[in-house]
C-alpha cells in the first residue's frame, strides 16, 4: 500500500501538499476502508454463518428470514442494536464502563495493520510484524478486565478475571509456537514469512518438520482459548456466569465485544494461514499484477476462512472444559510441548540449515493421511446420522 502511495506522490498527485499530512490522511483512509468494507461485513457475515452452521449441527434451522438464507441477519441485528437505549447501570463506574468496549475493539482492530492479504495488499509490513500482533492484542485483556470491574457485578468481575487469566496463560503456548516459525523463517515480518514459503503444500511451514506440524495445532488451540471460544469459553459460561464480563452491557456496546470476538476468529485464521499455510502464495499462473493480486486475495481469504469454519465446528461439537482442566491443559501439556517444538526446530535448523525437502514431503503425506482418516470418520458419521434435515440446503 505504501508503494502505491509513493508512486502516486511521485506522479505528482499531491503536489505542494505537506507529505506528513498526506501520509496521515492515507492511514486514516486505510483504516476507514478496512473497517467499513472488510472487517464489519466479515464479522457480521461470520456471526450469521456461525448461527447457521451451529443450528445445522444441532438439527435446527437457524436465522433464515432476513434476505436470502438469512444472510442479511447481521445488518438487522446491527441496526437493532444501534437503535437500542444505551443503558449504563447506576452502580457501574461510568467512565470505565463506557471506555472498555473501545479498548477491546482497538486491540482487535489494530491487528489488521499487519495482516497480508496479498503481496501488495498489506497496510504496513512492519519489521516486527508478529511481535506487534502479540503486543497489540494484549490491549484486549486490559479492556476485558476494565469491563469486568466497572460493571460492578460479581458475574462480570469473575468473568473478566477468568478471561484475563486464560488469555495471559494461553499467550505463552501461542507465542512459543509462533516463535517456532520465526526461527524457521528467520524474520518477524509477515511478508517475509510468507515469501520464505512456497505455494505448494510441502513448502509450507506446516510441513517444515514434525515440530512445526505440532506447533500449528498448539497455536490453533491456544488461539481459540485466547479468543474465549468454546470449548474454552469459561469467561462467559452461561450456566455459571450469565454472560461473564458482558453481563451488564447492552445495545451497541455489547455488539462491540462480539464484533471483536467474531472478527478475531478471522484474525486467528489469517495468522495461522500466514505462518503455517503459505499465506497468499499462488502457483505462477499469471503475470498480470491485478489479476495475480485478486487471486492471492482469494487464496488467502479462503485459507483463513477455512479455520473460521473449523472454529465454528469445534464450538458446535465440544463441551466446555472446567477452569482447572483449562489451566492444567495449558501449563502441564501445551507449554512443555511448545518448548519441545521450539527446541526441536532449533536443532533441526542446526542439522539441516536449508530445511529437509524429503522430511517436508513425508510430513505432507502424513498430513494428507490424517486428513483422509478424518474425512472417512466424518462421512461415516454423516451416513449413519440420517442426514435428511441437515444436508438439505434450502430450509
Amino acid at each position: 500500500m505504501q508503494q502505491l502511495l509513493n508512486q502516486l506522490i511521485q506522479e505528482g498527485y499531491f503536489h505542494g501538499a505537506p507529505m506528513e499530512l498526506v501520509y496521515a490522511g492515507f492511514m486514516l483512509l486505510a483504516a476507514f476502508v478496512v473497517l467499513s468494507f472488510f472487517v464489519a461485513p466479515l464479522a457480521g457475515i461470520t456471526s450469521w454463518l456461525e448461527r447457521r452452521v451451529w443450528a445445522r449441527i444441532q438439527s435446527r434451522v437457524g436465522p433464515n428470514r432476513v434476505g436470502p438464507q438469512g444472510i442479511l441477519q447481521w445488518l438487522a441485528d446491527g441496526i437493532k442494536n444501534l437503535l437500542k437505549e444505551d443503558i449504563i447501570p447506576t452502580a457501574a463506574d461510568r467512565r470505565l464502563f463506557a471506555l472498555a468496549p473501545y479498548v477491546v475493539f482497538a486491540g482487535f482492530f489494530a491487528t489488521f495493520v499487519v495482516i497480508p492479504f496479498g503481496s501488495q495488499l498489506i497496510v504496513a509490513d512492519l519489521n516486527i510484524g508478529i511481535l506487534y500482533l502479540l503486543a497489540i492484542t494484549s490491549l484486549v485483556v486490559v479492556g476485558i478486565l476494565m469491563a469486568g470491574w466497572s460493571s460492578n457485578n460479581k458475574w462480570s468481575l469473575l468473568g473478566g478475571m477468568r478471561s484475563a487469566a486464560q488469555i495471559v496463560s494461553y499467550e505463552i503456548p501461542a507465542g512459543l509456537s509462533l516463535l517456532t516459525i520465526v526461527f524457521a523463517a528467520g524474520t518477524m515480518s509477515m511478508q517475509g514469512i510468507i515469501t520464505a514459503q512456497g505455494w505448494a503444500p510441502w513448502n509450507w511451514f506446516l510441513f517444515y518438520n514434525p515440530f512445526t506440524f505440532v506447533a500449528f495445532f498448539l497455536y490453533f488451540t491456544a488461539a481459540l482459548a485466547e479468543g474465549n471460544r468454546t470449548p474454552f469459553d469459561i469467561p462467559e459460561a452461561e450456566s455459571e456466569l450469565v454472560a461473564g464480563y458482558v453481563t451488564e452491557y447492552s445495545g451497541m456496546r455489547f455488539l462491540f465485544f462480539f464484533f471483536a470476538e467474531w472478527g478475531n476468529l478471522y484474525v486467528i485464521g489469517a495468522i495461522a494461514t500466514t505462518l503455517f499455510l503459505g499465506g497468499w502464495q499462488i502457483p505462477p499462473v499469471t503475470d498480470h499484477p491485478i489479476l495475480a493480486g485478486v487471486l492471492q486475495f482469494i487464496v488467502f481469504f479462503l485459507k483463513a476462512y477455512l479455520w473460521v469454519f473449523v472454529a465454528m465446528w469445534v464450538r458446535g461439537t465440544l463441551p466446555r472444559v472446567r477452569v482447572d482442566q483449562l489451566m492444567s491443559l495449558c501449563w502441564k501439556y501445551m507449554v512443555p510441548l511448545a518448548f519441545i517444538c521450539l527446541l526441536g526446530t532449533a536443532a533441526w535448523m542446526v542439522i539441516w540449515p536449508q530445511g529437509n525437502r524429503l522430511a517436508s514431503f513425508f510430513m505432507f503425506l502424513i498430513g494428507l493421511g490424517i486428513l483422509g482418516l478424518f474425512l472417512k470418520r466424518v462421512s461415516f458419521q454423516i451416513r449413519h446420522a440420517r442426514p435428511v434435515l441437515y444436508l438439505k440446503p434450502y430450509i
Partner: protein
Amino acid sequence: MQLSPVIFYLIAALTVGSAAMVAFSRNIVYSAFSLLGTFGGVAGIYVFLGADFVAGVQVLIYVGGILVLILFAVMLTHRIADVQITNRSVGRIPALVVIGIFIFLLIQSIRETPWAKAKEIVYAPTTTIIGEWFLERYLLPFELASVVLLAALIGAVVLARKETRE
C-alpha cells in the same frame, strides 16, 4: 505544517498525564488503568526514537504482563479502595525536606549530564542487531538477567507451594 512534532507532544502529554493520574488519583483502580496510557505513551516514544523492537516488547511486557498483574492484585485485594493510603506516622515537613533534596539532586544530575543528541534517527530494523549483541557483546548481562528471572520463577513456585501445604 509538520505533523510529527504534534504527534510527539500528544504522546508525551498522554504519558505524563496518565503518569500524573496514576500518582494523584484517589481511586487505586483508576491509577492502575491509567498505567495503560503511560506504558502506551512510552512505547510511542520508543517508536519516535526508531526502536521498533523495544516498542513492541514494551507493549507486550508492560501492558500484556505487568499491567494485567497489577490489575489482578488490585482487584483481588479485599476492600483495597477503603484502605487509608496516606501514611500518618511521618509528618509533612520531613517529607517536604526529603522531596526537596531529591528534586535538587535530580535537577543537578540532569544539568550536569552531557546529553548526547542524535543527529538523525535512522528508521531501520533493529531486531537482528539486538539479537547479535545479546549473544556476543552483552552475553554476561543477558545471562545474569535470565538467572535472576529463573530465581524469581522458582521463588514464586516455592511461595505458592507453601500456601497450599498449610
